[in-house]
């Protein structure tokens, strides 16, 4: 496929606002996870919470959109000169030629959770201040991002659980290929809420400790929150941050179970192979794989089966969820951008928090970070419903 350059990108998560915070934490090996201190949620687990969201003020004309999820989106958009880059793109392409594709799993559901706590005792009605359309609605964050950036092109919200914002790249590619836009803002945002924290706890999928991907004693995820956005363009115009491009994408379904991966990773394998094929790359052309690596026993084991069938056991790989936690619908964009940083910095991150590698895991999981030249990376994202997406990112040349 025709490579699409990520001319500008931005990332905010529990490691801090902006690319620099994630980059520094990756290089220094410092996790952003902490014991759960989110609102009044009393769960014995670690989370990746973004500080200062409580103080973010939604831009005045868009105040109806105010909720934790859109605050996180705005907090991310305002980092790394991203808004300026979009303003520049707007001047070059026109606002109506720039698409917005945003992945989110739970959108602003926290607002609905809080509204249910203060229902009218007699009527059961939700408070009149509750604005479902602007907060919880699945399209809310796409509408907010589009309005905040002053864009008028095609717009779409993708909600396929934890693969949402990886699939945003595929949909944006198709829009550009179809000629309905000239460039696209792709990304994703998901924020902490009771639904996911208690929901994953009910499935016994959360760890009491910081998550330990690929560890022999791994016992679940650390729920995180995050947002990331990238400007996808055909050609690098006007000096972007990095010469990294989307080279391929692959999408598949497990067709197996709603919340458990197919144990042999058949669906994951199909997505990875499709991404490689679209990129015109052989498995040996890939220098690093950023794993979905949630640190549940089932995911890491199934993903390793897929990995070793595609790559053998020579390709370095790791999950970066020990740093960020599982940012769910934002995991795809978060890890795609981390993949960009790997290429730009010539850096491969270790599997943070992994103490004793599971002997059943045969892939080459990195237990120490290293600085080496990196040309092409694969990023895996898998979600509930057996929804899989893999991306190939690399030098544009």
């Amino acid at each position, binding site marked *: 496929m025709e490579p699409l350059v990520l001319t500008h990108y931005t990332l905010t998560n529990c490691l801090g606002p902006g690319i620099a915070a994630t980059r520094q934490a990756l290089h220094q090996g410092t996790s952003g996870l902490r014991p759960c201190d989110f609102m009044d949620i009393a769960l014995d687990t670690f989370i990746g919470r973004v500080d200062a969201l409580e103080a973010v003020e939604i831009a005045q004309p868009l105040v109806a959109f105010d909720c934790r999820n859109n605050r996180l989106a705005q907090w991310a958009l305002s980092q790394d000169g991203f808004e300026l880059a979009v303003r520049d793109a707007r001047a070059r392409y026109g606002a109506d030629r720039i698409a917005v594709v945003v992945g989110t*799993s*739970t959108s602003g*559901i926290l607002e*609905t*959770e809080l*509204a*249910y*706590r203060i*229902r009218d005792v007699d*009527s*059961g009605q*939700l408070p009149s201040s509750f*604005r*479902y*359309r602007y907060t919880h*609605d*699945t*399209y809310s964050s*796409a*509408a907010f991002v*589009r309005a905040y950036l002053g864009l*008028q*092109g*095609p*717009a*779409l*919200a*993708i*909600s*396929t*659980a934890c693969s949402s914002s990886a699939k945003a790249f*595929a*949909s944006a*590619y*198709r*829009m550009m*290929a*179809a000629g*309905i836009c000239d460039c696209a803002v792709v990304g994703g945002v998901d924020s902490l809420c*009771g*639904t996911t924290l*208690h*929901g*994953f*706890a*009910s*499935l016994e999928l959360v760890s009491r400790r910081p998550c330990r991907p690929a560890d022999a004693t791994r016992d679940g995820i650390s729920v995180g929150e995050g947002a990331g956005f990238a400007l996808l363009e055909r050609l690098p115009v006007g000096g972007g941050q990095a010469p990294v491009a989307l080279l391929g994408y692959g999408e*598949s*379904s*497990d*067709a*197996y*179970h*709603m*919340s458990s991966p197919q144990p042999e990773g058949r669906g994951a394998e199909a997505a990875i192979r499709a991404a490689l094929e679209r990129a015109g790359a052989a498995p040996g052309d890939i220098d690093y794989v950023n794993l979905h690596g949630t640190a549940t026993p089932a995911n890491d084991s199934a993903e390793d089966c897929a990995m070793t069938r595609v790559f053998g056991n020579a390709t370095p790989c790791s999950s970066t969820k020990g740093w960020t936690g599982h940012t769910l619908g934002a995991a795809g964009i978060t890890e795609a951008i981390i993949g960009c940083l790997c290429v730009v910095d010539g850096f491969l991150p270790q599997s943070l928090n992994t103490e004793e590698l599971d002997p059943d895991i045969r892939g080459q999981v990195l237990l120490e970070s290293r600085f080496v030249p990196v040309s092409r990376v694969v990023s895996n994202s898998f*979600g*509930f*419903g*057996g*929804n899989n997406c893999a991306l190939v990112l690399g030098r544009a040349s």
Partner: protein
Amino acid sequence: MRVFVDGVAVNGPGLPDWEHACRVLSGCAPYTAAPAVMPAAPQLPAGERRRASLPIKFAVDLAAQAAAHAQADPEELGVVFGSANGDLHTVHQICEALAQPEREVSPTRFHNSVHNASAGYWSIAVKAALASTSVAAQDDTFAAALLEGVMQVRAEGLSIMLAAYDVPGPPPLACACPTLAAFGVALVLRPAQTRMSRWWLEASVREGPPVATPMTVPELEGLRAGVAAARALPLLSAMAGQKPSNVDLAYAEDRRLHVELSPCA
């Protein structure tokens, strides 16, 4: 972007299936309002059927009907599902549980709460292992899903199972997020004409103003305006009419999706 439509399914108030809807929408039979029929979704394996919520069964049944109408093997179809609000019943149950001191969320309800639950159940029911997506764009969800489906057909050469559906939520969510009635539509889209191809359609994004084609029967216009998925009704009417037609669907807030439609020779 031209694609071929091999099969169609519909379910909504007074429009229980395509055969009946075709007569009503082509003016051969009067429209009579009646509640939408909630299907049992026998296509789902017993375990999944037990766990599936109402909107999931509604969507899965639509897709199964469209596949049958197209005589298509569902395993060979990519999946694009669109819903403005997904499953408000499950959201309601979870938010109700989280408002109690115990905050006990059912694991089944939690995995049903994802927007792509219907698409996931469908893929499990028919072993559809190709790409699957689940999209939303408020009132423009049908147009956005149709466009995503058409682009997948064109860019990937895939045949696509496209379904758009909305089911009203229970109170009090229904007030915050009004949906007039349950309505859904499913289409089987093909990259090339087959012996089953009934129509071809050509979709293009046009500049505003977003003037959507209305329905002439007042009850159907009310339905179109009151349910996001029912914004498909003008396209379904054009299909029922069996003659070349043009339909405009509101898209991306201030644009429109122009669809040229014609029966296949």
